[in-house]
């Protein structure tokens, strides 16, 4: 199949169906509504179930029920709905139920603007959990990440979040579904799935969903000491460009990282710029910053938000070696390549 032009939201929904997503529960919210609309159109034709829930809250709890029944299941939302899903996401994490959640980020509260944004980086639920969080920068990557998310969720029995900014959801670009990542093999069988005890060997009733013999505290301890370190080892993704020789390193994800590419081209011959682009926000690629060369004087962190969110992880990774500068939304408008360029030049001049 050749490259097809698709809207980001539709590209992610199609990738999910190709990954074997059997059910989708969701609620309309801009800028992700094309995802439920695509599933509503396609899933009934392709043997799956689409159900529009009464709220994001209910949708996520339906996801939990379907996941507990062994299905590959997904929901999608934007920030105002994501926070409503978090209690359930936390509960699923702590009872080890897999699912895929796509968050198409927008700016402000539900009665705010619908502008694209990167404002949900820090959004976490209760209970102290971690979930693999992908951050696509183009539609091919968005489709591949959603596709792979189902395998990762099943492999670790842990939900996976795909955090796309509104531009990824709304824009159109070519996607090639022949280039999806290979299917993971030897995924653990879902012996815990709810189908009535009669469907299970020995008719043993299922209750806690935790690995054999584990209570909730044991499961948390296991996650902290074994599961999460294993995920960090196996699933950390990052794109690193020219950091060995850079004067200034840009650190950005999603659409902000695409803007950085414009700036790197534009400032060729003026400042040597490198870039670190996390493709997973958790696990965050801290080790990538060890590759930064001795000439580097500063890190600039463009984000489509006001105060800066990922910049805190950049500071942790920097460990005081380089100052980290935020550049993001202004009073009137959001981040642009020109604003990044101006910030880089200002930092560069300050260093001379």
């Amino acid at each position, binding site marked *: 199949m050749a490259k097809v032009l698709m809207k980001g939201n539709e590209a992610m929904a199609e990738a999910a169906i190709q990954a074997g997503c059997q059910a989708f529960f969701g609620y309309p919210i801009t800028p992700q509504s094309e995802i439920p609309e695509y599933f509503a159109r396609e899933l009934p034709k392709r043997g799956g179930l689409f159900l529009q*829930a009464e709220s994001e809250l209910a949708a996520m*709890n339906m996801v939990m029920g379907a996941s507990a029944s062994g299905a590959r299941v997904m929901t999608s939302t934007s920030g105002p709905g994501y926070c409503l899903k978090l209690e359930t996401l936390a509960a699923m994490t702590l009872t080890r139920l897999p699912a895929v959640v796509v968050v198409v980020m927008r700016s402000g509260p539900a009665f705010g603007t619908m502008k694209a944004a990167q404002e949900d980086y820090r959004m976490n639920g209760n209970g102290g959990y971690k979930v693999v969080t992908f951050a696509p920068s183009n539609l091919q990557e968005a489709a591949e990440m959603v596709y792979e998310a189902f395998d990762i969720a099943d492999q670790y029995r842990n939900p996976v979040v795909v955090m796309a900014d509104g531009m990824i959801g709304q824009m159109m670009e070519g996607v090639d579904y022949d280039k999806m990542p290979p299917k993971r093999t030897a995924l653990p069988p879902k012996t815990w799935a709810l189908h009535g005890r009669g469907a299970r060997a020995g008719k043993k009733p299922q209750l806690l969903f935790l690995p054999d013999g584990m209570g909730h505290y044991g499961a948390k301890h296991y996650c902290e000491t074994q599961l999460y370190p294993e995920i960090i080892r196996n699933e950390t993704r990052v794109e690193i460009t020219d950091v060995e020789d850079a004067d200034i390193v840009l650190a950005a994800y999603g659409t902000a990282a695409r803007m950085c590419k414009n700036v790197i081209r534009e400032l060729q011959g003026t400042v040597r710029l490198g870039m670190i682009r996390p493709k997973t926000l958790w696990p965050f690629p801290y080790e990538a910053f060890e590759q930064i060369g001795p000439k580097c004087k500063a890190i600039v962190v463009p984000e489509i938000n006001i105060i800066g969110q990922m910049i805190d992880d950049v500071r942790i990774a920097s460990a005081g070696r380089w100052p980290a500068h935020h550049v993001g939304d202004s009073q009137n408008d959001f981040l642009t390549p020109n604003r990044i360029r101006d910030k880089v030049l200002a930092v560069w001049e300050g260093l001379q």
Partner: protein
Amino acid sequence: MAIVYERPKSLNGAPFTYCPGCTHGIITQQVAAAIDELGIVDDTICVGCVGCGGYIAWFMDTDAIYSLHGRAPANATGIKRMNPDKVVFTYQGDGDLASIGTAEIVQAAHRGEKITTIFVNNATYGMTGGQMAPTTLVGQKTTTSPYGRDAAHCGKPIRMCELLSTIDGAAFIQRVAVNTPGNVRKARAAIKRAFQCQIEGKGFALVEVLSACPTNWGKTPAAALDWIASDMIPYYPLGNFKDFQ
């Protein structure tokens, strides 16, 4: 020697942890007995709630899952849609179903979700220590209505059966009580019929059970049963609100 009475086979034998005089134990037992009578223990999935009602998951010898506060109908929806040939029931208290989970129960009924809900109404929040519920009677003292529920301040108690029976997707709605042996027998019959409703694919089914909470009511078990008759039933009339053919 004939066996005239035994523990329902759908219970796993774990000792009940409900307070002395609490009628959750009687209700749990009726649910299990109904499952036994219908022969569906291998195919039943129990969805527990947050609150004392959530303990049911410990006692049932069926597949079970806990859901978050008020979300049992949404959770059950996900399970039932993936298991259309299995029997899925929620067991929820009044704080869970009639307060934090009103959206989920109304919308599950509205969709005609083919699940069965056992709604235990004891006019208070039991597990959190006797706070005011939407079902708390006017004048009833609780830890968050220490001077008695004032209707002018926080409304009159909500009647869920009456509300839900106006919804087309609801196929079976009945209110019962477990304060007398006769009422317990009627409760068992209603619960069985609510499962039957699901098995026949008729739509959403709910049985509200008026239940005693002596601990939080500050009454002896016997006085608590009397209070169901004297105070609860006059406000929450027993009977069938909706039935199927």
